[in-house]
């Protein structure tokens, strides 16, 4: 049997995600996939999956699940207080569930998104090369929608035998989600800000507004003036910080629009995107300027942390 878990409560917004569909941008379809790629990859590696296998991305609170069969699972990302049969279980560690075991979450302690991987990978609809759920077009993952009570989670493939529990990410390698400094690289239109505006961007505190979802976050902070000639639309990337006429920046996330004509004053480094993915409306953040080489060193450090999970 491939059916491993049944959803008794879906949680606020739980979707199937993987590493997205980078080639679909040619058709205006966002790359999508897990918002916190580090947590997603780590969850998979902890249960001996490929990093690109599908996981559940649970937003703001967790689902309630019942194991239909013995399976190896891992929970990473934001701490929502995971429990098995009412007893707290460790995150960032592979754990076995027995038939009938109940997974619940006591409540959010910090962060925005927790990830749940199952050995063998979660099965879902594949669309344009990815199982990532994209709500706007209703495609990918669990029939293009968020989970609902009664859904059954099946495996995409066979778990890697012999699967072992107890594989864990060393504590010192956990992401520091509490530090809301996002490292960012100056972007194509940073000069429009002038010296004073650039100082405001890389130094002031910004707040995530209520308008924050998988597409992007509107930020509130000192007004930035990036006005100038109208720009012709160009291709965008996740992490890009756009400054529209209102002067309140927009940070593009996984389901971002693929092209646009607003000035891009900086782009958040890949290594800081997991922290960005864990921000919620009301959270404060700052952007710290880094060069490309420093950003790549941070990326390398994260890669080494993930490699520590590969035997």
């Amino acid at each position: 049997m491939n059916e491993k878990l049944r959803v008794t409560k879906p949680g606020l917004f739980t979707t199937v995600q993987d590493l997205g569909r980078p080639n679909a941008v040619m058709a205006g379809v966002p790359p999508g996939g897990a918002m916190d790629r580090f947590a997603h990859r780590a969850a998979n590696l902890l249960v001996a999956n490929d990093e690109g296998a599908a996981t559940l991305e649970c937003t703001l609170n967790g689902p309630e699940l019942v194991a239909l069969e013995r399976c190896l699972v891992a929970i990473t990302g934001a701490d929502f207080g995971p429990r098995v049969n009412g007893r707290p279980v460790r995150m960032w560690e592979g754990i076995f569930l027995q038939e009938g075991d109940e997974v619940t979450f006591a409540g959010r302690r910090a962060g925005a998104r927790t990830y749940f991987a199952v050995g063998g990978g979660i099965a879902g609809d594949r669309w344009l090369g990815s199982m990532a759920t994209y709500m706007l077009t209703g495609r990918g993952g669990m029939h293009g929608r968020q989970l609902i009570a009664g859904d059954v989670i099946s495996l995409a493939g066979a778990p890697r035998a012999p699967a072992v529990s107890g594989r864990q990410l060393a504590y010192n390698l956990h992401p520091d989600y509490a530090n809301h400094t996002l490292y960012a690289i100056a972007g194509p239109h940073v000069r429009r800000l002038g010296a004073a505006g650039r100082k405001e961007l890389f130094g002031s505190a910004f707040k995530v507004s209520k308008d924050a979802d998988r597409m992007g976050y509107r930020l509130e902070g000192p007004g930035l003036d990036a006005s100038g000639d109208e720009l012709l639309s160009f291709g965008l990337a996740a992490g890009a910080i756009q400054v529209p006429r209102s002067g309140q920046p927009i940070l593009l996330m996984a389901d971002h629009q693929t092209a646009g004509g607003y000035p891009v004053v900086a782009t958040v480094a890949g290594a800081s995107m997991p922290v960005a993915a864990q921000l919620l409306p009301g959270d404060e953040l700052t952007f710290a300027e880094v060069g490309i080489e420093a950003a790549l060193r941070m990326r390398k450090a994260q890669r080494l942390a993930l490699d520590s999970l590969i035997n």
Partner: protein
Amino acid sequence: MPAPPSTPKATTVRTHPLGDSALLAELGTRLDTALNTRAIALAAALKKRRDVRQAVAGYASVTVHFDPDQTTYQALTTAIKRLATKRPPMAEPGRLHRIPVTYDGPDIEAAAKQLNLTPTQIAELHTRPIYRVFLVGFVPGWAYLGPLPEELELPRRHVPRTQVPAGSVAMAGRQTGIYPLPSPGGWHLIGRTPVKLFLPDSDPPCLFRAGDRVKFFAQ
């Protein structure tokens, strides 16, 4: 004395980082078919490289997503400058799409008044050119078409609509387009077409591709 035939100038390319694993290569800042042709050719050439994950042409730029384990921003910038000096291959004319339009959009009367035209004249002017697909992007299936005849140039609506039905034919500035999905929008709605632009079960899931040509006809 007649001017000597113009020779293609060596294109100056400016690159800017878009984070640590993408860059923006700008060929120019004008809405120009020749620049767009070069951008599409440059994107196609870059896509063949193993260190490039994806290259997307904009109006006059290419956004390149690369593998930082295989190349660097500097190395790719050098390669792009070299590629851009090459004469672009003769551009094949893109596929021609003929799109039927009923010119009865909710903004056609107001637009006509602002332009000192009649709705019929708007339809006539809008169906006259063969438009170019400058780029596909923004939302699934959206294509930026142009250039629109000068006589139809209007700024965007002051108050964007919160919901524009799929299939709405719209214009703003020197651009025209068709809303592929129900979405908010600030362009002037002049008509509608039954043609589906977003094709979720096809690959690629859109009718138009960058470089294609589009001719509207009134029905």
